[in-house]
């Protein structure tokens, strides 16, 4: 078992952070890589990006949003309990190089994915401008951690309850207009956000990385479930990615494939909620 040693809730309990004991992974994981977790014998294999590591204590940090049965089940796991399997690190690490000025755009739990990447980009000498956003103030995560790894931090909320009112794309446009020397953009968040960020950076002709989250099974390139179209070619996000050139990604196809199991996911989640009660915090 991979034991949870620290657990916290964010964004009104919709986003959960776990620090897990996984010494081998903690030693190996690099920014941009992910792990696959399975809560128990009957569980699905869920890919989650490694949000942080503490190699000395042998810990890794995962941060996830509760969106269905599997993540709701993860949420019930308390300190001292844990996951049956944690596999990784998987995927290609982020290629970290000095380009000068970099803009990092994170939305929702994408901010958690962004954190180690922004930190890595800054450590190699980049000037990092970070834009993070959420629907409203209560749902914004990791503001302090992102501030600590950024030269400039800009915050957006859709409803204007915190920072600038509006989408991260609006802020991205402003940053790109004011900073003609941005050499790289990294955009990580919900698919529509990444799609529109990429349309924006394309206008400014700024190279853009995105991190994709298609449905996966094995995570080793064996099943092809996570196939995405990049530059007209079939790529497997689990081994070729998860990061790709955002200007070449077919986001519409990704959106479509992410809906593969909506009906089954709803059935499974409804059944879970009926059995456990919504927002339960049972200590079994």
């Amino acid at each position, binding site marked *: 078992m991979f034991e949870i040693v620290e657990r916290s809730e964010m964004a009104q309990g919709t986003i959960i952070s776990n620090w897990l004991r996984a010494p*081998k992974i903690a030693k190996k994981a690099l920014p941009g890589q992910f792990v696959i977790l399975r809560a128990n014998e009957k569980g699905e294999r869920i890919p989650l990006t490694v949000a942080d590591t503490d190699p000395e204590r042998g810990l890794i940090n995962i941060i996830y949003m509760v969106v269905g049965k*599997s993540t709701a089940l993860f949420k019930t796991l308390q300190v001292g309990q844990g996951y049956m*399997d944690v596999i990784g690190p998987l995927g290609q690490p982020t290629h970290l190089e000095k380009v000068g000025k970099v803009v990092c755009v994170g939305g929702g739990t994408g901010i958690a994915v962004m954190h180690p990447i922004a930190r890595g980009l800054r450590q190699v000498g980049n000037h990092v401008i970070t834009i993070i956003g959420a629907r409203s103030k209560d749902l914004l995560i990791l503001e302090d951690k992102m501030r600590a790894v950024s030269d400039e931090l800009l915050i957006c909320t859709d409803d204007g309850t915190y920072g600038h009112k509006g989408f991260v794309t609006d802020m991205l446009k402003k940053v790109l207009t004011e900073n003609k020397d941005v050499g790289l953009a990294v955009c990580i968040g919900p698919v529509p956000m990444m799609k529109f960020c990429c349309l924006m950076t394309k206008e400014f002709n700024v190279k853009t990385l995105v991190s994709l989250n298609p449905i996966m099974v094995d995570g*080793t*390139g*064996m099943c092809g479930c996570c196939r995405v179209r990049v530059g007209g070619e*079939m790529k497997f996000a689990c081994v070729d990615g998860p990061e790709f050139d955002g200007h070449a990604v077919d986001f519409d196809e990704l959106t479509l494939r992410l809906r593969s199991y909506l009906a089954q996911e709803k059935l*499974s989640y409804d059944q879970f909620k009926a059995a456990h009660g919504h927002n339960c915090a049972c200590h079994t």
Partner: protein
Amino acid sequence: MSEEVKAPKKEKIPRQQMPEQLPEVRRRNFDEVPFGYTPELARKEAERCLQCKDPRCRQGCPVEVEIPAFIRLIKEGDFEGAIRKIWEKNALPAVCGRVCPQENQCEGLCVLGKKDQPVAIGNLERFAADYQRLHGRSILPPKAPPTGKKVAVVGSGPSGLTVAGDLILKGHEVTIFEALHAPGGVLVYGIPEFRLPKEIVFSECNYLERLGVKIELSTVIARSETVDELLARFDAVYLGVGAGLPIFLKIPGEHFIGVYSANEYLTRSNLMKAYDFPQYDTPVVRGKKVAIFGGGNVAMDSARTALRLGAEHSYIIYRRSRAELPARAAEIHHAEEEGVEFMFLSNPLRFLGNKDGFLTGVECLRMELGEPDASGRRRPVPIPGSEFQVEIDTAVIAIGAGANPLLTRSTPGLALNKRGYIVADPKTGKTMKPRVWAGGDIVTGAATVILAMGAGRQASNSIHDYLTFGW
């Protein structure tokens, strides 16, 4: 029949059929198809063996099981002795008895087969293994004294398990590394429950663990640890990672929801137990009209899985004719019995889908057979203007597998051929990288369980020589 009371000559006992579930019943459940021999049936079948002085059957076995010897022990009722005789050469008898293409191997060479049906060697091997699992005293075969040498086996499929089983008996320490969360490789993610129950694979793995083999699951060599890191901790490394790269048709519409690689379809259904969704959390599309593309064992497994998941129609769309189907005869027979519908001489052109992205059909082209190609089989040639559409909601692509590059590309010093497979000496499994051996599908390309086991045997002999004599 009873009128002619002639004492039957020895070879006149008919080949004993294994009782099995009726097709109309089994096509809707995931339970194993044959029930296995009773001790009486097994002894009767064993009596048919002529106990040849120079047995041909044994030459057909890639791991050289002492076939007449174990059959004689079954005949004598010494079932425990029979399994111990098999174990001398084969650590996975319950698996081999079920999935080997015996008609091309041991049974294909049995002299009885010249005039009559060959001895049911596979069924008998299965019986001996099952009897041991259910009633045996679990006495382990003797192990050589410890040598202090350590071997890492990457991949717990049939070749890796064979290497582990051989080397542990020779006194070496063996650790198997498996990327998935269960041991067995293709035996657990690929071959369906109704053909090879997972419990049997786990029991074979458990036998190896009782012998002292360590199995580390959920460990992706290349990512969790590299081969070079393993070489620092182990005296020798065996790579038996399988082919493991799905091949798609490369036609338009492969992104539609409901289009699967066979690897994904079978992994979801087998390893993740999606057939038991939502009791298990992993879903799979339960199509009503399912088309499988390909004609091998994996295609048959997929088509039969589709029926069990509730398909009204399960089609096999294959570009050649029935005579060229590469699947094992028993699998084709079982698929036909269960109602799988074959569309021969048909080649897919594109998938069709609706605006929500769900698969709705496939457009195919009719083919005819032309001159034989490099494989010796007649080459399918398209008939112009013969396009036709089939309404389907699920498609499973089972046209083979390629070389998964995850481990090979991250291992410097390993020579690969132009298709990405590891170059290894066919006699010994030695790769171009010192102290590293390889075998099974990652060397040969997708083949059978027993060929992978045969490669494992050759490599384990070579590894043992190296660990003992230094060459």
